[in-house]
């Protein structure tokens, strides 16, 4: 092969081989129509997003495009970058196989798309422009460029094919549970999600059809041209040609079949273009944007209610990002899989919630979806008629909304940046405004409003647990302290937790830590009140605490309760109370490592449960592990640990609601996981966990095999050194 031959203009391929002018005209008319339909479809969708409120995400988007270029590529961060989108990081992170398959499809498809664009630029633009300008047609679609183009397109096509086949086999044969579309909430009148399934297969089938016909086309053309030398640059197309020839096809026959296949390919490709905005395929364009506009911190620091509104009741209440979230969902089912409510048999599945809202918004706002929709015999759920109110309660049932523990696992695992939890809270705000709630929750809220705690106990009893201490705890309202200990409701009022709080107080006193509490002026921090959707009460509680903290003298805060920690650390600053906020495990780890708390090894075999609000929300995962290591405990991790921890079921106000309807409480599920590990201690670092898991070991009958203990008790047990005041240390082994 000579260089001249390579450079020859003949090294190319015809664009419209044997199509003729009528065919060409038809093709251009149909193409134009397809593009018009495509544009119209997107215009409809865009009009829908524009009905949403401003989301305040312009800065996030800008940072995603131009900020830290590799944000979110290697580990989960609050925000994503273009590189993370291009690397499919969010998909690969929690499911390598599927993620890589998607990456192949992603780049294969992008290549095919770019190939078409290049061809169009050459054939429809460069060719015509050059004739107009210079008088004779120019083209760059030949020679070395053509060979590289051909090679890239041909090999990337195989990548695409491999990805598609993997996905097809996964969906059709392996059928992982997360792709089962059975609803978590069964509507009375029945429902069918057959069209959703059809939508998936049509999507996959169309891509596969386009790809297969493309290879067939290449093969037929190569064969019809009598296998010119340079077609080795389309190795797989050439393989098809060789195969066809091997089957006895003549170049002439190939030429005539080529025309037919050409039309089939064109029809599929143009059909697909027109189909995109009306189907699952829309995620191709939406999800990159959605990821770039995603901000995980919005779950940690909830957005305020829409102005002049108590929660969401109509489409216009949603922000554009929240509306985009709905369309971004590809039904991958990761949220469905990890959701503690769904696992426990509650009617909530984050996937169903998003799909129901999407379908309802689409129907109400005139969006058009051809296949990907649920069908029902009655106008319920996502098929509810459009109205001024009733999204919360009708489109998504109140029971479903109340099932959420706000554990954030859905947001954490979503590969496309959907923020389920803030949307759920916005809808709950509506339920609270209407007074639609469990009587037990109503009682808790009323107690919080009158006494500042959910127990319905007198506010004056808050510090009663301190009475039995030998050394009184300083009153941070009256004297300056280094640390303000924000104790939290459970650690203050629950009789079962009194011992833990007292023990922590004694450890800190012995370690010489200068700390104080706010006594009866500490009110519930409001984290869960806010997540219940009672924003007004949250404001009241926060304002009270902030006022009290302003009048107290301290440098930093530590808290026993991860829920309080979350709102103190992330939400109070917006209200003018920006303090350094620690979790007590961070403080203990520091004290042990600095030698302030001398410890001896305990040698227990333990597992550790990460509280959602500590680990997933706030990334505090190492401090408790450092403590356990320092105490000489062998830590056996549960499969679901750190940011992937499994919720105990108490968060988001669930602890104030009835959970007896669940088939398996999340806490029981978790204990069953831990029992498999053959450890003797189940270590927790959240007061609510002590009660939740203390109950769960009993109800699952594992009381004698697994002891649920707060990490404080381990530290206390391991402490050596200065003489213990009589009865000071609660012997956890007793």
């Amino acid at each position: 092969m000579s260089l001249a031959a390579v450079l020859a203009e003949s090294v190319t391929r015809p664009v419209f081989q044997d199509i003729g002018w009528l065919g060409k005209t038809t093709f251009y008319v149909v193409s134009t129509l397809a593009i018009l339909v495509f544009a119209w479809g997107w215009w409809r969708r865009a009009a829908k997003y524009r009905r949403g409120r401003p989301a305040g995400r312009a800065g996030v988007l800008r940072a995603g495009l131009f900020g830290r270029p590799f944000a979110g590529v290697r580990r989960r961060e609050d925000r994503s970058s273009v590189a993370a989108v291009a690397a499919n990081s969010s998909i690969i992170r929690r499911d390598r196989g599927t993620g890589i398959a998607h990456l192949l499809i992603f780049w294969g498809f992008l290549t095919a798309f770019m190939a078409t664009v290049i061809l169009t630029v050459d054939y429809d633009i460069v060719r015509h422009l050059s004739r107009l300008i210079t008088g004779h047609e120019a083209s760059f679609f030949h020679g070395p460029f053509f060979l590289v183009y051909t090679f890239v397109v041909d090999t990337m096509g195989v990548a695409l094919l491999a990805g598609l086949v993997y996905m097809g086999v996964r969906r059709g044969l392996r059928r992982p549970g997360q792709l089962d579309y059975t609803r978590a909430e069964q509507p009375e009148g029945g429902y069918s999600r057959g069209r959703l399934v059809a939508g998936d297969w049509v999507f996959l089938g169309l891509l596969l059809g386009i790809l297969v016909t493309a290879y067939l086309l290449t093969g037929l053309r190569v064969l019809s041209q009598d296998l010119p030398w340079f077609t080795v640059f389309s190795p797989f197309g050439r393989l098809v040609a060789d195969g066809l020839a091997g089957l006895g096809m003549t170049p002439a026959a190939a030429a005539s079949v080529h025309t037919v296949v050409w039309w089939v390919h064109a029809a599929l490709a143009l059909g697909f273009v027109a189909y995109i905005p009306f189907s699952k395929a829309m995620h191709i364009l939406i999800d990159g944007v959605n990821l770039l506009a995603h901000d995980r911190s919005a779950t940690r620091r909830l957005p305020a209610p829409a102005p002049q509104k108590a929660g969401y009741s109509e489409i216009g209440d949603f922000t554009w990002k929240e509306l985009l979230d709905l369309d971004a969902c590809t039904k991958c089912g990761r949220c469905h899989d990890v959701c503690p409510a769904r696992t426990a048999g509650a009617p909530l599945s984050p996937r169903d919630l998003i799909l129901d809202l999407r379908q309802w918004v689409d129907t109400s706002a005139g969006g058009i979806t051809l296949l990907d929709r649920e069908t029902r015999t009655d106008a319920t759920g996502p098929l509810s008629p459009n109205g001024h109110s009733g999204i919360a309660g009708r489109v998504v049932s109140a029971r479903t909304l109340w099932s959420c523990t706000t554990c954030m696992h859905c947001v954490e695992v979503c590969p496309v940046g959907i923020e389920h939890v803030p949307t759920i809270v916005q809808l709950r705000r509506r339920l609270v405004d209407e007074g639609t709630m469990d009587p037990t929750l109503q009682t808790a809220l009323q107690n919080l409003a009158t006494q500042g705690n959910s127990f319905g106990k007198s506010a004056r009893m808050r510090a009663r647990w301190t009475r039995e201490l030998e050394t009184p705890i300083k009153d941070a309202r009256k004297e300056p302290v280094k640390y303000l200990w924000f104790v939290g409701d459970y650690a203050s009022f629950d009789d079962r937790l009194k011992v833990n709080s007292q023990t922590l107080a004694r450890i800190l006193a012995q370690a010489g830590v200068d700390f104080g509490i706010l006594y009866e002026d500490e009110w519930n921090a409001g984290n869960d009140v806010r997540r219940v959707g009672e924003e007004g009460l949250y404001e009241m509680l926060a304002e009270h605490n902030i006022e009290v903290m302003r009048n107290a003298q301290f440098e930093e805060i530590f808290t026993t309760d991860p829920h309080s920690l979350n709102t103190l650390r992330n939400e109070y600053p917006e209200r003018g109370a920006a303090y350094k906020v620690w979790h007590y495990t961070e403080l203990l780890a520091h004290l042990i490592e600095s030698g302030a708390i001398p410890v001896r090894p305990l040698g227990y075999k333990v597992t550790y449960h990460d509280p959602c609000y500590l680990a997933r929300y706030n990334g505090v995962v190492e401090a408790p592990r450092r403590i356990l290591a320092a105490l000489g405990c062998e830590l056996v991790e549960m499969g679901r640990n750190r940011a992937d921890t499994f919720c105990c079921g108490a968060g988001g106000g669930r602890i104030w609601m009835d959970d007896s309807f669940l088939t398996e409480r999340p806490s029981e599920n978790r204990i069953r996981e831990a029992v498999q590990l053959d450890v003797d201690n189940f270590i927790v670092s959240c007061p609510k966990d002590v009660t939740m898991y203390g109950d769960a070991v009993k109800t699952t009958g594992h009381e004698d095999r697994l002891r649920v203990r707060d990490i404080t008790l381990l530290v206390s047990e391991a402490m050596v050194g200065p003489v213990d005041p009589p009865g000071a240390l609660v012997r956890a082994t007793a």
Partner: protein
Amino acid sequence: MSNDVLVLAERVGKQITDSTYELLGKARELADAWGGRAEVALFGPSEGAEQLGGADAVICIDHPALSDYVPEAYETALLHVLTQRAPRLLLLSNATVGLDLGAALSVRWDAPLAAYAVDLAVDGDALVATTQILGGKILAEVELGGSRAIATVVGGSLPPMTPAGSAEVVTLAPPAELDSSRMSVLQVFEPSGGDVDITAADMLVSIGRGIGSQDNLELAEELAQALGAPVSASRPIIDAGWMPKTRQVGKSGLKVKPKAYLAFGISGAPEHLEGMRSAELIIACNTDAKAPIFDVAHYGTTVDLFDLMPALAEKVKG
């Protein structure tokens, strides 16, 4: 002014109620102390007068307006009796009738009223009532000054009197005001038959607010079935409409006296305690160790009822 003590008789059907006898016993005691008479006012058809043997006199007024309990008519008639007989003390039950009439007559007859009385005693010249206020948290000893007084007495706090002999019957002419009534009874609802009679059961599985939600009634039903006992409940459960009124234990419901009373998630408001404290064996389950139910229960536990009920049911089924 006299030294007499007047009791208003209440009837269910033709039967004089227990609370009337409780009041009558106290009326007898006080009248004896003062050297006065114990009298009973009986309105409507005079049936029942013969059951009031322990009184010195039964004062009857009959009028069509008094055939049912019409609060207004009863008030008119009772005020008439008070004016005519001028007793030193009027005793009423601290239940619906007493709640209707006591406070109104305190104004209209111009006499001090001691509500929620659990006992009355004569101390020299003074009449002293012990009353229960603030949800039973506080007892108050109050002196009823003046020459006339009213007390409404909490049912079950006094021993009932056993009627003996027969009382003089004095029939008064009905006052004219009874003819012009602003009130009429449209319909009377007896406790619906058909449902089980919780007052006749040997054992009751009783539930309160702690049960949380209506769905959880199943737990109680299951246990009750295993034990062969009916389910009863405290007021909040009935008010929420989760169980029929016929299952309500308490002052405003039914008084029960089973051989065993198992209380789950009941904190023990006075209203409830009044209805079950005389059960032979009371076992209470409540997570709040300070719940007042434990003051009347013989055995108690703070185990979660959601764990205890299924555990019990399972063990009973064997």
